[in-house]
């Protein structure tokens, strides 16, 4: 009954600090065999959880990065055309009949697996990460629904390939467009937000143990304050970790010590010209002073 807590601990051992909500959603998704849809701003660790889960369960992570114009050939399978061409030439020289050649070149041997097909043919159930599903087109979303409900893929020349094991499916979305209700209904859902102070401290301790406790608290306090500023790109957890690494690497013992160094290290947090301008050294120093 407390498996979700066990899962949370497992993830924590892999350096992923999951909120109770997220751990529960993930646990249910695994227990019920349903896909899990994660939504939230960029940089809150949506993708990372799939990696952590794969490591915790000691299984493969298969990732499908979605983009506009993604089609079946890149997501499911493709025929190995070069090999087919060569084979046809060879067949012609050997005097093999066209029909026999056709049967041969449309067989398993010439099939190239892409993520979705690979995911249903693993002996141990892998973690299938479908990243940024909102970037893919609606047509692909519809196709994905079919795969996610049947876990079977039909190749016209070969027939239907049934799933050997059901992958643990995690979908992420940044919300650049509304996903269809059908897809939402197939999935369990969790909204991932920027971590609160305590959680972020735990993340920092897990991922960058070399950072001293007091400095760590300053860093997290500073980053949380920066997030409240009016920025184009709000720094995520990964940026926070980069920033912490930079600060630690520069040998800073106290964030408020040296505004110049702080300003240099900000390059890891703020990624646009406008944001750099929005946070001049004085402001950064003030925020750091508050955090200290």
């Amino acid at each position, binding site marked *: *009954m*407390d*498996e*979700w807590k066990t899962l949370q601990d497992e993830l924590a051992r892999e350096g992923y600090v999951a909120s*109770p*909500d997220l751990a*529960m*959603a993930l*646990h*249910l*998704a695994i*227990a*019920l065999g*349903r896909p899990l849809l994660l*939504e939230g701003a960029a940089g809150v660790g949506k993708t990372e959880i799939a990696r952590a889960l794969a490591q915790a369960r000691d299984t493969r992570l298969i990732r499908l990065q979605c983009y*506009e*114009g993604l089609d079946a050939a890149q997501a499911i399978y493709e*025929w190995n*055309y070069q090999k*087919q*061409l060569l084979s*046809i*030439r060879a*067949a*012609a020289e050997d005097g093999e009949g*066209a029909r026999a*050649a*056709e049967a041969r*070149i449309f067989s398993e041997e010439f099939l190239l697996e892409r993520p979705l097909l690979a995911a249903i043919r693993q002996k141990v159930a892998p973690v299938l990460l479908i990243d940024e599903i909102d970037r893919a*087109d609606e047509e692909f979303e519809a196709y994905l629904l079919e795969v996610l409900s049947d876990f079977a893929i039909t190749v016209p020349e070969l027939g239907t390939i049934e799933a050997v094991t059901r992958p643990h499916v995690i979908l992420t979305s*940044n*919300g*650049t*467009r509304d996903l269809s*209700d059908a897809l*939402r*209904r197939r*999935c*369990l*859902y*969790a*909204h991932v937000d920027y971590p609160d102070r305590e959680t972020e401290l735990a993340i920092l301790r897990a991922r960058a143990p070399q950072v001293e406790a007091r400095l760590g608290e300053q860093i997290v306090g500073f980053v949380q304050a920066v997030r409240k500023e009016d920025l184009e790109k709000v720094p995520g957890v990964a940026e926070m970790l980069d920033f912490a690494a930079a600060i630690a690497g520069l040998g800073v013992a106290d964030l408020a010590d040296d505004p110049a160094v702080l300003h240099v290290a900000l390059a890891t947090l703020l990624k646009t010209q406008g944001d750099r301008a929005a946070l001049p050294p004085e402001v950064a120093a003030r925020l750091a002073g508050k955090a200290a």
Partner: protein
Amino acid sequence: MSRVTRFAARDPGIAARLTGFLAHLRGHGFALGIGEAETALRALEHVRVADPDMTRRALRAVCAGRAEDVGRFDALFDAFWLNAGRVRERVTPSARADKTTRSTREDATARSSATGRADSPEGEDGAGDTAAEGTGKLIASGLRNLMKKDLRDVVSPADVAQAEIVARQLGQALRDRRSRRRRAARKGAGIDFRRTIRRSLASGGEPLALARRTRPDRPVKITALADVSGSMTLYARPFLAFLSGLMRADGDTDAYLFHTRLVRITDALRDPDPLRALNRLTLLSDGFGGGSKIGEALDLFARTHARRSVDGRTVVLILSDGYDSADPELIGAALARLRKRGCRIVWLNPLKGWDGYAPVARGMAAALPHLDLFAPAGTLADLAALEPELARI
């Protein structure tokens, strides 16, 4: 968590109670079906049901489908299971009685769903008041008109039908232009290997005829912002009808209203029942006919919704007369910010049709440098006449 709902002695069991809860959620606008009920029941097998926190998390993962749902779920959960909300009727539905529970609550709940308030008081006028409260915090306003106008008087279903035709044409105009440009840039791209190989079998592996393939055209997305402040009341009518038509013609359209606040009306307009859509719109548009803060509304839009939904393939349609009760500088800055996202901006101003009109309103003057098209639009006919113009930008 000390308060616990007491159920009647002839309580029909957890399955029926859960069904009642899902009906409760459904009444508040959650899209849940029989499949979800089954999933929810199965989910409860995996948690300690007596622990309200755990049950809450489990049911939230199953029932909520989007970020807004997550926010509303907790209040609805409390209201149903913990008696924290209103206690209007004892909810102990049996599997058989499910239908009646829904119909008794449907009316009240459908209205409050538009506002996202779980525990709204149920008085005759209560729904309207909570609507004002629930959504009124987006922008603090000095000039909000609390005299509510019923948009049913403003937009009729017949208007919507007519507007749909115009909207479809305009959508087509934008799309056509897009596809022309793509095709020209794409000449000769992409060989369909699959088909080519198959054909080459007939000629002994010699690919004599190359099968080609092209990428499908991606339609542009329209995001519309309509000013419904006092000075625009006359013109808002055809434009809202036009928006309803646009929503029905194309699933990608996004629509917002602004006066002293900014309100997203996409979901309301997309309601399959046109009359109910207008009802929901009415709830969302209190303050309709008051002052306007164009700059603030646009700025808020550029900072929040636009980040999500506006990209290089979006046309942002703004309908406003440019009379702003706030700082006009903000308008320019907000539009510049919006432009950075790569979208095209069309400003439709009903006053532009007038003889001798010059964009002297300070807001309008500030906006001009950032516009791709500045055109008159006061009536549906004006909008229809825009077609060739829109095709050009």
